[in-house]
């Protein structure tokens, strides 16, 4: 994308949530989408952590994009991402200890999430700070939305609860609380969103995105 091309900020956010949703469309970072989505709370908090890292990484990489030598851009990006991940991890440990105990291990793994590095390489390294900020917001929200949807389905079916409160008074489908249920939830939701896309939006979302 050249700088002359007009970029709609709203379009960037919509692209992150629908057009190129990290989990449901691009199928990146499926590991956390399965690992930390057995309850709505941990799924959403993981989404928040990724959102924070994605936005901060996009901004900082966009700022330094012209200073970094092309040969070492990937190590430099990883270092920047790693810094923000550590910050997120420390903040979580200090101020949300119960949550940290549950998802701390996975928060440290954000540094290796494909979605964050791919946005750094594909977008932030080629665009101004403000569009990068909005791209990060869009992708972060998209990821949060995906994890929220998956964990909503899994906690409701697997535990008969939402945010820890029991809402269904029957035997839950334990499969969805287990890791393998995560795969089923991701697959079924992917199909569901594809169906919505084809049914109501003519199916452009899947192929309509830029790259």
């Amino acid at each position, binding site marked *: 994308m050249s700088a002359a091309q007009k970029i709609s900020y709203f379009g960037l956010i919509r692209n992150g949530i629908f057009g190129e949703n990290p989990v449901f469309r691009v199928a990146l970072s499926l590991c956390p989408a399965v690992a930390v989505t057995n309850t709505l709370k941990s799924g959403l908090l993981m989404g928040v952590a990724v959102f924070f890292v994605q936005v901060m990484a996009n901004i900082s990489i966009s700022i330094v994009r012209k200073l970094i030598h092309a040969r070492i851009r990937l190590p430099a990006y990883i270092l920047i991402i790693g810094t923000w991940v550590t910050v997120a991890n420390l903040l979580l440990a200090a101020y949300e200890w119960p949550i940290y105990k549950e998802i701390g291990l996975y928060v440290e793994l954000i540094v290796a999430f494909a979605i964050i590095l791919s946005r750094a390489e594909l977008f932030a390294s080629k665009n101004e700070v403000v569009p990068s900020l909005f791209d990060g917001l869009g992708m972060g929200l998209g990821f949060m939305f995906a994890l929220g949807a998956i964990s909503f389905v899994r906690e409701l079916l697997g535990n008969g609860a939402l945010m820890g409160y029991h809402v269904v008074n*029957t*035997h*839950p*489908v*334990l*499969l*969805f609380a*287990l890791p*393998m249920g995560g795969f*089923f939830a991701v697959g079924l939701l992917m*199909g569901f969103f594809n169906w919505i896309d084809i049914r109501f939006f003519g199916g452009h979302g899947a192929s309509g995105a830029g790259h």
Partner: protein
Amino acid sequence: MSEKERQFIVSVSPHIRSDVTVARIMWSVSISLLPALGMGLYFFGPRALAVVATCVVSCLVFEAGMQKWMGKPVTISDGSAFLTGLLLGMNLPASLWSFNPFLIHLPILGSFFAIVITKVLFGGLGYNIFNPALIGRAFLLISWPRAMTTWLKPTAGLLGMDAQTTATPLGILKEDGVGKLMEVFGTRTNLYTQLFLGHRAGSIGEVSVIALLAGGLFLLYKRYITWHIPITFLATVAILTWIFGGKDPQTGRMVLFAGDPLMHLLSGGLMLGAFFMATDYVTGPSLRAAQVLFGMGCGILTSIIRLVGGFPEGVMFAILLMNCFAPLLDRVIKTSPFGTVKTAAAVPGGPKA
């Protein structure tokens, strides 16, 4: 010549898309399951009938409904959905029916998972990777482990309505060891006889070995299945459980070559799995050599799960795991098309003659 041709028709997968053949095989397999079903109903009473009937009806309804919804021709008369429902029902404990009023829906949910998720979403008959009935059962076992491991005591008599529960022979063996098993069954001869006839706790259709053998031999005689998968499966289990199945009653340490292969062959769902589910055309390999490997793989996995795993019984997971490998096994056992030079044709994507 005609013998050869018949073998060819029923064993290599492209031919099973022909409707006549599919229907004939499916209904024949269903009929060959009837003796075992009859024994199950005899031992577990009306509850067993209710479970199996629910599975069969809901499988047919789900298959027809999904095909209608997707605008495809409705093909429930080919018997594959019926067979899936029958196998699923026979793989469930009869206690599912009255275990708890909330759980009446379990056979229906299992049928939904078997037909809709495992079969229709993968493209329908011929495209499913995993055996639908077994996936349905695995789904139920993982999701409701307690209900799925509550076994009714076999009470001979069609109208037996008492709902005493007990553990399966393999369950007793896993948790309390051989000593307790002998305590329950008395002598070893009695144990084998009871297992052979089916007077034991277990899934509805798996208990009666003699009835299952009758059905399996019928299928072998009609050449709907070949010996390759069932015999290698059973032989591998027998050998491995004989070598590694023995345990010192005092220390609990493994004693080599002291296992009880007969007990392992007769118990659990081994006979049902080996003759009726591992031999599924769609989810198993079609080449003979691959089938031998498939059967051995099933046997090894079953023995590992039974002897060192957490579950007392491993036939279901063994077959499902080997289902993944079926296409690979067919590919590994390469055959060169008739009349081509071997080196060129054996490599996919290699130089064409």
